[in-house]
């Protein structure tokens, strides 16, 4: 059924397009424009060409922030995705009676991240926090550490918190994936003598491969978006050991009032994430072609 006036569809799309332009496209374009200026947010714009990008490329802390977020993502792939996969496997191996566990694992996902960060700040407190107190109580005082104050442990400590929160999220995703596997496939595997572990790794996991790929993409892109956990727990410390692009960018823009440089950093970060997304799409296409052939 075609509209009477050809302009009608465009008019119907206009409100959404206006909102998208105002809330998304406009700020993106503005950020790109600001990146070529030196600007404190209030005074005059001072054009500097690509100087902000040169500075970003030569800023050792900005480069280090990408290394830190890469390590964080690598750790969270294990602590969130892999652990979530194992948890999903456990709750689907014996479906009866696991409802309580599924809920318990998912509860941290529902907590606001700031609340989680404050909670774990107490857990990690080196003087009277839960972790060190427990270690002392069970006679393992030699294992106590200044968890968030030691550059060796701060980043892994933050990653553990992230795993505690999101393992349940990925468990729920994989659980849904496992539930979609035809029962006769699993039955056939059992009849052939496969154990639960063999069935899990050789039948179930390969059959939800596409779900795992999506989960990995979510984990990687989510890692680049991390901010509140780092801000509350360490704010980039100790000694910049947990400085990631987002915390550094917020400090440059909101504390140092360098909007231009911060915008350039944001553009660089966006390009990095887009590049990763592009690699993912290419790999998926190649995998799909190989599967078909």
């Amino acid at each position, binding site marked *: *059924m075609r*509209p*009477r*006036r050809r*302009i*009608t569809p465009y*008019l*119907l799309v*206009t*409100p959404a397009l*206006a*909102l998208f332009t*105002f809330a998304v496209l406009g700020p993106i374009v503005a950020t790109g424009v600001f990146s070529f200026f030196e600007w404190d*947010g*209030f005074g005059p714009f001072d054009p500097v060409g690509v100087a902000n990008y040169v*500075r970003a490329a*030569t*800023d050792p*802390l900005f480069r280090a922030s990408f290394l830190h977020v890469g390590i964080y993502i690598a750790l969270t792939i294990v602590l969130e995705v892999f652990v979530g996969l194992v948890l999903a496997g456990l709750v689907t191996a014996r479906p009866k009676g696991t409802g309580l566990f599924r809920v318990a694992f998912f509860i941290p996902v529902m907590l606001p991240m700031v609340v989680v960060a404050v909670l774990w700040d107490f857990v*990690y*407190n*080196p*003087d*009277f926090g839960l972790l060190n107190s427990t270690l002392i109580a069970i006679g393992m005082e030699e294992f106590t550490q*200044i*968890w*968030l*104050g*030691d*550059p060796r442990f701060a980043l892994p400590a933050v990653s553990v918190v992230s795993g505690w929160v999101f393992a349940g999220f990925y468990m729920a995703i994989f659980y849904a994936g496992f539930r979609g596997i035809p029962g006769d496939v699993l039955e056939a595997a059992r009849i052939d003598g496969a154990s639960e572990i063999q069935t899990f790794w050789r039948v179930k996991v390969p059959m939800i491969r596409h779900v795992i790929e999506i989960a990995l993409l979510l984990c990687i892109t989510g890692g680049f978006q991390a901010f509140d956990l780092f801000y509350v727990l*360490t*704010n980039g*410390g*100790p*000694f*910049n050991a947990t400085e990631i692009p987002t915390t550094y960018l917020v400090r440059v823009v*909101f*504390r*140092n*009032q360098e909007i231009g440089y911060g915008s350039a950093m944001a553009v660089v970060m966006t390009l990095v994430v887009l590049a990763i997304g592009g690699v993912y799409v290419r790999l998926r296409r190649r995998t799909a072609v190989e599967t078909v052939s």
Partner: protein
Amino acid sequence: MKQRHGPLALLLALGLIVGACADDGATDQGSDTTSSGDTTGETTDAGEDVVLRIAMGSPGEEQIGVWEQAKAAFEEENPNVSVELNFQDDDLYQTIGLLNLLNGGEAPDIYFEWAGARLQSRYDEGFVADITEAVDGELGSYFDEGAFNGMVIDEKNVMVPANADVTTVFWYNTEIFDSVGVSVPTTWEELIDVSNSIKEAGIIPIAIGNKDLWPVGNWTSHMVSRVIGEEAYDQMMRQEIPLDSPEVVEALGYVQQLAEAGIVNESVNAIDDNEGAQLFFQGQAAMHPIGSWLVSWALEEAPDLSFDYFNLPEMPGAGTQDSVIGVSTGFVINENSEHKDVAIDFMTLFSSPEFTSLMVDAGGTPIATGAFDRDDIDPRVTAMMELLQGASALVAPPDTGYDLEVADALYAAQAEVLGGVATPEEAAAAAQAKLDQ
């Protein structure tokens, strides 16, 4: 069924776009306030409705209550005036919040600011009114002359004093000192010796939480000024001499001594200022170097704690050895305000003994004379004021008296040295390299 979506779609599209732009229109009108003096619902004519806007970082619930009382009293005396109070998060206000407000459509008529470099910046940007005439009148009668130190620019009074805080002194647990058998140190060497004695008794000598870098930063910056002298400190903070100059490196060497002696809590860089204070409140630490605001806090959280203070002991160096690190704060009348007279009247009311006394009750430390006409004020609060007023030299803290980037670089260097992850030379070089970028 005939299609009649075209006109409806057009109306919907136009309606949504106009609606989205409506706020921009109002903002544009608001930004004209500074030139026309008018916004919707207010004019400057006597008897016409006036909206008086006041902005500050949040002073806490109890002091907010005092502001609300002042607002109510002022509105009762001036029925045509409506007072709007804007309390922002402290960190937000100090960084981008205030500037956003001042450059926005509904800029405050009165705003909180720190004396020193920040006040000078606001003056240079045109946001500071001359209130000399008011200070010569009733408003000035509520303050001692010394209260206006640091609040005069180009021979003009530009700020109504609010608080004066000593940024860092050593608060010490008198019972721990007595039980260990040590007395208040008067020199750097004595401080190290006293701390070692306390450490041998199994108590943390000095506890402080430096996750946000400023607690140790302020303390050790005072040490730096004592070693290199106030003038060189000022030059360093203005980058007239680099952070990695030999004299600054030498000063950071004393921070290294603290680290090597192991007399500061191991968790120093992992916990924030609140957690550091808790170690002191719970009697786990003998000393806690922090500002004058600790008094009201300790009275509330640790009423049984027996504590007193001493200023940073004398250090080997070129600085004035009884200097105090501190900051004065106050309220500025916006030069762009169309209601300066009304603003001055409000600040006169708020600075009166009645409201000054209420602020003291609410845990504040105002420097209006009404605060000291009471005999129920904690002697340690009075001592802080006397310390400030009697100081031979007043050192400005890096993060309120100078450029934030320089302050952050210095704070980071001091944290690295105290944390034992860098030598003074390395930390200072890294800090200067950061600034040279």
